[in-house]
């Protein structure tokens, strides 16, 4: 009985008793979820345009952040370092297209996926070799990002909002809006959607796949840099982040591999869900459940809806 009480009643009683704390937890979950969603967005961009499941997206986040901080530490002014980090992501995008993707046309998806695992190892080694392996802190202030916090009175208590978190949410929103504009209004964005629909057909109307791939990887690189800055500001910049970045996978399961709104909603569900579970139920299991909760949710979800939240029912053909 005690156990049942602890599982089904006590957590809700706690939520009702201290609504301000619940709000705080929800907000924290929301911000984490935004960052998950941003990583997932990077996966979706590349998957949509090239059918490649880019395992290295999480590493690219760290790599981008590392190069930004690395340039700054080498004496480059913050904003110039930002531009140079963008340049690095551009070079990486072209490099990946020239050296990897171009040579792997028509390979099965699984081979491409494994190639991106190789890419992530390469980036980890290169990142540490060039910029040093030690943990770094993000140059938040130097980039003009807010650092303080505001205390808000709500629900008979207080909620603390870190300014950087607010900024993260705003930047994420701007990024998504910009991408949506890019996809629907620009020539290359339209070409990109054509490629996503059908490679062969796109080729036959004269769209250059190579160009599209480079552009998409660059776009994913920009998203990675933004994510890296936000994430770095909340914790530190190091490759230990890659484990956290893997959480984008369950996000994608929920949202589907090709849906941008799906990535966002999936990210928020996972972010909020795991925070709430950790705070209110984690204690029962001894804590640390954030490590696997997202995956187990995704797993259970898959058993009931293998096509994801926004996917259409799969009709098997032969």
């Amino acid at each position, binding site marked *: 009985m005690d156990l049942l009480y602890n599982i089904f009643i006590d957590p809700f009683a706690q939520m009702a008793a201290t609504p301000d704390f619940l709000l705080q937890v929800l907000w924290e979950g929301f911000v984490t979820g935004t960052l998950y969603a941003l990583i997932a967005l990077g996966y979706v961009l590349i998957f949509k345009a090239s059918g490649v499941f880019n395992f290295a997206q999480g590493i690219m986040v760290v790599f981008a952040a590392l190069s930004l901080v690395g340039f700054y530490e080498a004496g480059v002014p913050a904003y110039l370092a930002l531009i140079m980090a963008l340049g690095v992501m551009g070079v990486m995008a072209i490099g990946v297209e020239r050296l990897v993707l171009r040579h792997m046309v028509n390979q099965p998806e699984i081979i491409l996926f494994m190639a991106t695992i190789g890419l992530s190892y390469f980036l980890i080694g290169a990142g540490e070799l060039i910029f040093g392996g030690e943990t770094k802190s993000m140059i938040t202030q130097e980039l003009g990002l807010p650092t303080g916090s505001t205390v808000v009175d709500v629900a008979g208590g207080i909620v603390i909002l870190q300014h950087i978190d607010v900024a993260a949410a705003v930047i994420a929103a701007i990024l998504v809006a910009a991408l949506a504009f890019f996809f629907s209004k620009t020539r290359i964005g339209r070409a990109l959607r054509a490629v996503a629909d059908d490679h062969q057909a796109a080729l036959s109307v004269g769209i250059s796949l190579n160009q599209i791939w480079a552009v998409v990887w660059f776009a994913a690189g920009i998203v990675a840099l933004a994510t890296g800055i936000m994430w770095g500001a909340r914790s530190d910049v190091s490759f230990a982040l890659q484990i956290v970045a893997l959480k984008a996978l369950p996000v994608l399961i929920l949202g589907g591999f090709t849906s941008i709104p799906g990535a966002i909603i999936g990210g928020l569900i996972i972010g909020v869900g795991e925070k709430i579970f950790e705070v209110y139920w984690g204690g029962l299991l001894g804590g640390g459940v954030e490590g696997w909760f997202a995956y187990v949710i995704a797993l259970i979800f898959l058993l009931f809806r293998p096509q994801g939240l926004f996917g259409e029912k799969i009709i*098997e053909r032969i």
Partner: protein
Amino acid sequence: MNAAAPQPYTTEDGREIGGVLMEMKNITLKFGGVTAIKGISFDIQEGEIRAIIGPNGAGKTSMLNVINGFYHPQEGEIVFRGETRSRMRPYEAAKQGISRTFQNVALFQGMTTLDNIMAGRTLKMHRNFLWQLLRYGPALDEEIEHRRKVEEVIDFLEIEHIRRTPVGQLPYGLQKRVELGRALAAEPSLLLLDEPMAGMNVEEKEDMSRFILDVNEQMGTTIALIEHDMGVVMDLADRVVVLDYGKKIADGPPGEVQSNQDVIDAYLGVPH
């Protein structure tokens, strides 16, 4: 629809055609809002070669998928060997002796010809896990006994020379033949062939026709096939059922079907 049940008879070339092996009654199959098959009924007699023809999108492949349990019709029932079949998984259909080939060759690309045909005998092999671990005694005996059967099929289809070749490296015509071999290895009582001659040249078509006739004659296997080449269908089939837009528009011996006005309109309108 209300015609009397078909009777056993002997064909002109002396083959014995038995009673009804499988009967489809009012089958309707829908995918979401699309109706692929609308209330179709027909039967397959034991020992005959039954052709299903019709223009693209007529629902032929869907029909085969219904017969071997891959799709489940929303309405209607299937009677196989006198028993009404319930909703079943494909491997249960395979167990009842229904095997098939596919429109787009569905071989196991990474495996050799020999392994592909051995795969057709999966259901007939029963030695348990422990013997398999040791690959000794009964498990090895079983493997070799089935190998003998498989070699018979390989002989029959004249593909000895490609025994050890991974099927992914074979030309299309040979792949089709290996696929037929895989279906035959299961010693089916009902063999479903989905466009066995698609994409073949004249010579390959002649070979394949010969194999189909031989299978039917020598092994007495009942065959239901889908085919586009009308010449082939008219030569091979004992009876033909014609589908158009998911409906049955004709059913009978090739000659009769050929002169049916509906069929001519829908399908044979172009002079051959």
